């Protein structure tokens, strides 16, 4: 009986999720595994949103910015690793699109084929791309978060600012044709390689790479929100001013979680590039960032696992419905209806709904045990 507590049930749910994710390759072909691995990446974005929106009360409508940055940083490295980049008439790799826009007679070398191309030089090293994929989103979040939270900007203004910044960067990316192939994004990438193992997206190993990292992020995030930092953060969400009068520097706490959330999104962006083999400005579309928020709302933004599952389930539904011939016209309507239904009927999302059911069950069980003891 002592084992049946709220926390233990939650831990069991986390455990079950991890076991299922790890066993999936036994039941699926590589095509579906590749799909699921992309959905796991979206699940990771759900975790990031749950952390910033659910736990910290920061509604970030520009999470796509961090996702996109992570994606582009690794994609630059993988672009240089692509065979086409080596076949441009130079010993050193040069992205093919740079030649399309270069001036006649420009040297075919990253140093000076165009004005900004030298920025690509360190990306020849794949691990530099990986490091930047984490560092850049975190750094942007640090500067943005510090500016916002020091000035005590909160609520809807944070949403507007993050959204605007994301769109602004998207425009800059589209505009940067010579540097990162603008509107077309980075395609024709090489494979991510670790110690001779090439992560072809249609390989079970690639699925496991993404699955294991997703599970680690989930466990890490769960650990983090259960430390005192996590409790203080929830207190800030509840009543920021009160926390300030206890002596906590509220802005620092918010910036910290904003950065963690951004780093997770950046990591997700990199994994997405590995699974999907491209990076494009569409990652910074408004629609995508809002989708992330919808996933978290449906799954339950106060639950990390809930938000993660919300992302995965909605994407599975979307894929199945949009590929069923009779529903092909209506799939967006169906997703919209699910969203409305969940938000209206279960304001705490699927996870909150299940949690409530489990709480009732536990209460009932404990009551029964007590009665039996009295008898």
């Amino acid at each position: 009986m002592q084992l049946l507590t709220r926390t233990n049930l939650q831990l069991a749910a986390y455990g079950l999720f991890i076991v299922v994710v790890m066993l999936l390759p036994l039941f699926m072909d590589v095509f579906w595994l590749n799909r699921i691995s992309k959905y796991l990446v979206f699940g990771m974005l759900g975790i990031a949103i749950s952390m910033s929106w659910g736990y910290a009360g920061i509604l970030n409508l520009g999470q796509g910015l961090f996702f996109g940055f992570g994606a582009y940083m690794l994609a630059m490295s993988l672009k240089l690793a692509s065979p086409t980049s080596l076949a441009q008439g130079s010993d050193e790799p040069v992205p093919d699109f740079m030649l399309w826009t270069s001036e006649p007679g420009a040297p075919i070398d990253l140093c000076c084929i165009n004005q900004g191309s030298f920025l690509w030089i360190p990306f020849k090293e794949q691990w530099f791309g990986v490091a930047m994929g984490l560092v850049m989103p975190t750094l942007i979040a640090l500067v943005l978060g510090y500016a916002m939270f020091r000035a005590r900007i909160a609520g809807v203004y944070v949403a507007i600012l993050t959204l605007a910044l994301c769109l602004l960067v998207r425009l800059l990316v589209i505009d940067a044709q010579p540097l990162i192939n603008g509107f077309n994004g980075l395609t024709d990438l090489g494979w991510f390689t670790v110690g001779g193992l090439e992560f072809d997206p249609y390989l079970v190993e690639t699925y496991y790479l993404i699955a294991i990292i997703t599970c680690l992020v989930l466990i890490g995030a769960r650990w983090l929100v259960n430390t005192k930092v996590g409790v203080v953060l929830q207190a800030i969400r509840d009543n920021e001013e009160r926390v300030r009068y206890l002596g906590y520097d509220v802005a620092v706490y918010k910036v910290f979680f904003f950065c963690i959330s951004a780093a997770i999104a950046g990591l997700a962006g990199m994994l997405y590039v590995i699974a999907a083999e491209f990076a494009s400005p569409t990652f910074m579309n408004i629609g995508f960032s809002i989708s992330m928020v919808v996933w978290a709302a449906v799954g339950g933004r106060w639950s990390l696992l809930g938000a993660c599952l919300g992302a995965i389930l909605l994407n599975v539904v979307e894929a199945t419905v949009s590929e069923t011939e009779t529903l092909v016209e209506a799939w967006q309507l169906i997703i919209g209806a699910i969203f409305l239904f969940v938000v209206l009927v279960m304001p705490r999302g699927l996870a909150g709904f299940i949690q409530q059911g489990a709480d009732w069950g536990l209460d009932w069980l404990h009551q029964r045990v007590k009665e039996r003891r009295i008898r």
Partner: protein
Amino acid sequence: MAAILEIEELEVNFRGFRAVDGFSMAVEEGELRVLIGANGAGKTTLMDLITGRTKSTGGKVTFLGDNITNRQEHKIARRGIGRKFQVPSVFKDLTVRENLEVAYTRSLSVWRNLAVRAKPRRVDRQIERALELSSLTEENTNLAGNLSHGQTQWLELGMVLMQNPKLVLLDEPTAGMTALETEKTSEIINSLKGEHSIIVVEHDMTFVRSICEVITVMHLGKKLAEGTVEQIENDPTVIDAYLGSGGITHA
């Protein structure tokens, strides 16, 4: 005894309206000071000025020898000033225990708090004490949002106890309480006395008599009088300011 808090000629000007207007006061270490005054006398504004919520436009606040005038809220709080708000403010979505845990402010930085839950024994003992004092032991795993009004007020007092500040500011701790709850509250406050210096804003004179040593009367942002309960109750200027012979007893 040395003064722990010294307020000199403090002033705040809200676009021409001086809510606090050249107010001076000194509170000694371990003292319990009651602040009374009609609505709009500037009592809550004074607390806002001390804790940095409102920036003053003149004068000086010295705490433990440091000039803390217009510093950031969290820095003033770290120096050792705790506050209980007029409207009970606890963290409604956290459990009673978590509320107290947050109020334990020996470690405030993000990095240290990543590890602090790993060694909870010393903190636990303090939490048990605070729970006992605020009679919330049975409720410790309930969400604070489900507590009654009186319990919420006690929880906030428990949080002040956890925070363990040198100076405690209490803004109307008995507002909206039944007589029985008020009695319990004065018990809690009396147990805080001695270890902490306390400033209480209060209207309820029965309550004031049960806890008080020295009263300061505020009127229109200025200090009107200061003294013991008897001195204040018989002070003609105070009686005048409180509209007639009813005096402050019925204020």
